[in-house]
């Protein structure tokens, strides 16, 4: 009940922050661009648009929307002192964090959905002849919403664990670099580290490909990218990664990617609540 009270007030507060809507506009812009891009195609391909959206959304825009909307959720209140008005009434600290997650998620999900509406209108205007696969579209939107919520939970968790605006920014940027850029692009990615350890132990990494695949998917971005079997045909998906087969272990099956994303909602939130409950708000 107090979670809802916190969420109601926070929603009212954050939806009036103009900065929150800037990355949403960026996402909408990419949608329009990608759909417009198909208009010059003699055989417009809806799934190629989804694929492009998955790429730009996973590594940049969705994390940006979520982090901007939520990184100050708790730390900002601690810095300004409004936290004392928030906790001067009978709400417990866990309710503050969950209420913030609820409010910021609603804002972010609303922003993402607005972008999809804009994108769909752009599709109808620019490429009226293109067939939209609505089933795949809805699955992609649903999973994108889950990915966005995971990043909101991460940002709220970091925000709840930090005492000041500057630390919340630093924490959010650090997370983004480690779990996004660092995870896939740096020569010392966790997968390489794992292979290195295996080699040191005299094992052949070739025998551990499933594990390496799992490590890749343990970052929220990796998990999101590996959900493409749900909404992209094999002709596109197979260019990126080997399409999973039923004989693969469960932890690299597409459904397990949803479990990983759900864990990225629950775990950062739980850690953030624990830290915030012990915080000294002097």
């Amino acid at each position, binding site marked *: 009940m*107090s979670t809802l009270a916190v969420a109601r007030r926070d929603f*009212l*507060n954050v939806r009036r922050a103009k900065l929150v809507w800037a990355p949403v506009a960026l996402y909408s812009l990419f949608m329009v661009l990608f759909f417009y891009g198909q208009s010059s195609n003699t055989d417009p391909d809806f799934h190629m648009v989804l694929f492009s959206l998955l790429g730009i959304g996973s590594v940049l825009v969705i994390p940006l929307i979520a982090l901007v909307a939520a990184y100050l959720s708790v730390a900002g209140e601690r810095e*300004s002192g409004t936290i004392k*008005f928030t906790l*001067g009434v009978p709400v*417990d600290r866990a309710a503050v964090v969950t209420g913030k997650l609820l409010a910021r998620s609603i804002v972010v999900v609303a922003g993402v959905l607005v972008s999809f509406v804009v994108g769909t209108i752009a599709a109808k205007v620019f490429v009226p002849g293109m067939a939209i696969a609505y089933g795949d579209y809805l699955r992609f939107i649903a999973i994108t919403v889950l990915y966005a919520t995971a990043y909101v939970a991460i940002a709220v968790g970091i925000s709840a664990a930090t005492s000041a605006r500057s630390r919340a920014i630093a924490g959010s940027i650090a997370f983004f670099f480690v779990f996004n850029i660092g995870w896939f692009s740096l020569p010392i990615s966790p997968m390489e580290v794992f292979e290195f350890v295996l080699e040191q132990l005299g094992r052949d990494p070739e025998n551990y490909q499933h594990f390496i695949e799992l490590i890749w998917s343990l970052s929220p971005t990796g998990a999101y990218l590996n959900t493409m079997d749900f909404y992209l045909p094999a002709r596109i998906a197979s260019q990126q990664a080997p399409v999973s087969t039923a004989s693969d272990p469960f932890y690299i099956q597409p459904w397990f990617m949803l479990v990983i994303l759900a864990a990225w909602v629950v775990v950062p939130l739980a850690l953030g609540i624990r830290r915030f409950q012990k915080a*000294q708000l002097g």
Partner: protein
Amino acid sequence: MVAIQTDGLTKRFGSGEAGVLALNDLDLTVEEGEVFGFLGPNGAGKSTTINILLNFIDPTAGSAEVLGHDVQTESKQVRQRTGVLPEGAEVFERLTPREHIAWVEDAKGIDADTDAILDTVGIADAADRKAGGFSKGMQQRLGLGMALAGDPDLLILDEPSSGLDPTGMKEMRQLIREQAASGTTVFFSSHILSEVEAVCDRVAILSGGELAIQDTIENLRDQNEGVCTIDVEVDSVPDSLGLDGVAGVQDVGVADDELIVTCESPSVKVDVVRAIDERTTVTDIVSEDTSLETLFERYTGESVEAAGEQTDDSTEAAEAEVVA
């Protein structure tokens, strides 16, 4: 019934050499229905105490109860029945005053007469304006409005007059009196003696994290009867003042070329001047009236003006004394 009870409350920030003992073994009792002034210079531990009462920080040792509830294990019950005005806190910049009150209603599960509250605290005409542009005084009024919503049994106000102009301070005192008259217990902190003196039944004076005294204003006055200070300006301060032998001298302070002597009774003053005159040349004598301020200074080792100057708004502190 007891509204607030602390028992050996201690708070240490940091540890070891660098640690600061913000609160040392505080035993405080606030009875239900009284107006209790929590007095002391800035940094004496007033806000630390209030932060513990509201479970914002944990005590290092000791315990506290508010309205019969343990502040750590039953904090929600405490905050359900308490209205809180935190010290110098900002309000929600993108919400209107009406929405601020709605937040308290929502969180406490109560219905408040929002218009009446905003009228009481004097911001009714700004009820639907976002609070981002509010002055410190208006924010303070809004914070007080949030504290009043739902007619709580206890009001905890931390430096309620900070940011208010003299008129605002006067209104604040009036409001505290009205709340007390309707049976609400009011616990408020201040570094301004005159403000506390004007409305409180009882006061506690805190100094350096320790309780210097806790008593009724009347008793303090009685106790203080006769005690007075005399400032003697001299050419040069002698090595030995020779005041040890003067009967009735309670305390001697030296500031530059000024000797501040606290005397048991006014008749001691002349002996003091005589004793000093034997050692050095007296250039001026200022004899002060007996007042609670003397007492405040004695207990906190700090003058009221000095305590005021520590804040950003020392002029307001000075003005407050003029108004009172």
